[in-house]
């Protein structure tokens, strides 16, 4: 946990860890499908955070649909919007929903969460490249014309990072050779056997 986050989070740590582990499971599913290893769970908390139920869970699907915007948070929001259709009252829905995600939401996702007016966000590792919840921009607290929401980071940070690392060590296998940052290793098979 980073020392600069003095704000105490309202949820019980056991509950947070339980849902973070579910999010990590989603990210592991993503690695199996050769997608970027980030997963999330949206949970509805009612009765003063006493009752909770999972609304949706998802992982990155950018390669599956050839769409770079399909991060797990966006997938979840889309699933909820599709479920409630045109006549949803999003204030009612998203004000009760808390997001658990393995990696800090990127700028796009952070602002989309802000547009939807989500209740809270708990995330695992920090995202130094595009983090929108305090790392690069602080879209969750600063007034950018939409709702603000509290965001807490660093839960199960190492586990979340490890899943991502495992993915990036291989490089993004879905890309063509000339578009990859890391070349495919010819000795991959030997390495996997030896390790």
């Amino acid at each position: 946990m980073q020392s600069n986050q003095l704000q105490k989070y309202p949820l019980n740590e056991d509950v947070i860890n339980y849902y973070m582990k579910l999010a990590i499971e989603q990210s592991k599913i993503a690695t199996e499908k050769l997608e970027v290893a980030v997963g999330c769970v949206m949970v509805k908390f009612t009765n003063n955070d006493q009752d909770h139920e999972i609304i949706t869970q998802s992982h990155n699907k950018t390669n599956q649909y050839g769409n770079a915007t399909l991060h797990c948070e966006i997938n979840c929001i889309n699933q909820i919007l599709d479920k409630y259709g045109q006549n949803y009252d999003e204030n009612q829905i998203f004000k009760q929903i808390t997001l658990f995600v393995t990696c800090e939401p990127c700028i796009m996702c952070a602002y989309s969460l802000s547009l939807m007016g989500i209740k809270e966000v708990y995330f695992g590792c920090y995202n130094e490249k595009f983090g929108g919840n305090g790392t690069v921009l602080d879209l969750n607290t600063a007034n950018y014309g939409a709702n603000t929401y509290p965001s807490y980071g660093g839960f199960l940070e190492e586990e979340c990072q490890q899943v991502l690392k495992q993915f990036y060590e291989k490089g993004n296998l879905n890309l063509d050779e000339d578009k990859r940052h890391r070349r495919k290793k010819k000795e991959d098979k030997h390495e996997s056997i030896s390790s």
Partner: protein
Amino acid sequence: MQQLLPKDFLATANIQQAIVVEFENKKTNFMIKKYGNDQYFNLKNLNHIKRIRKSEENPSNVQFFMRLKDDFNEEIEQNIPEEIKPYLLKEVEVAVNMPRTKEQFLQFNKYWPITYKVQQYEIVQFNDFEQQEINQIMRQCIDQAKQTYEKNNKFNACAIFDPNKKKILQFAVDETCRKQNSIKHCIMNIMKLFGENYIVTAQQKAITEKVKVKQDEDMNDSSKEMVQNTSQQEKEKKDEDRLEEEEEEEEKKKDKINVKRKSEESIEESLSSYYYCTGLDVFIVQEPCIMCSMALIHSRVRRVYYSLKNPKQEQFGGLNDDLMINHMDSLNHSFLVFQNVESEYANTTLKSNQQQDQLQK
């Protein structure tokens, strides 16, 4: 139309005092090896600043950049290694900000030598033909935006354009129902549609490739048979009619194959090898919000043209002078932005639409 440039593009030199050490030319290698990455010689984030220069007063001497004066306190002064202590500490002026243009580089370089990388966001100048083309595409977008406004959505639409093939690949309109919190903005819609089309065409490509391989195999078999047939007939040299018939059949077969090949080529052309939107331009009527701006970065677009600035009443735009997400240093991609494309036409249509709205109410 006007290109949106980062603020530091027009900035003048931000001059700060820095501490340098002066010593003989001979010792340069030794000093760099020993203290090049040392804590006393700290460039921090000033990676564009060169470490050494020749002394202006004494050509046989070299000046070694130590650190900025703001960064230089007593503690560091006391802890300086003894090998450096006998040499002179001098104060010089350094331009701290990164040069973005060549003019800036020439100006900044006068103080203390710096390096200059040619930036990928060069200043683009369009000829009349290109201008007209851009305006035409934007007009189409504005017309689409008008239609979607009448269906009670926001006045916004966008298009993906392939600058090499001069072809619009995809249109999409806003579907937010004029609600502030909905993420069905036109950029999100267009990426969804474009991705779906891309996947479908990629699957088609895989199928056609399979078919092609099979056809090639068939072709080889049939041609062998043909050769055998013809050789027999040459020997016989009797039934010329048959020969002619078979030749005709052959031609027909070839025609059929040619037609198939052509259709395959056209499909392949349309799919090509797009990786998200790499190398493609996006036209959008109103400035994209922060979410959409980041979506454009994730999609690796080449350029963005927009017509109207975001009024900032509901959502913040991400591609204006203030935020300029497209030129953020930490992000892995940047693109050029052009604003005020056909803004008069867009403004008049938007205003007339709004007036109609009020009348209906």
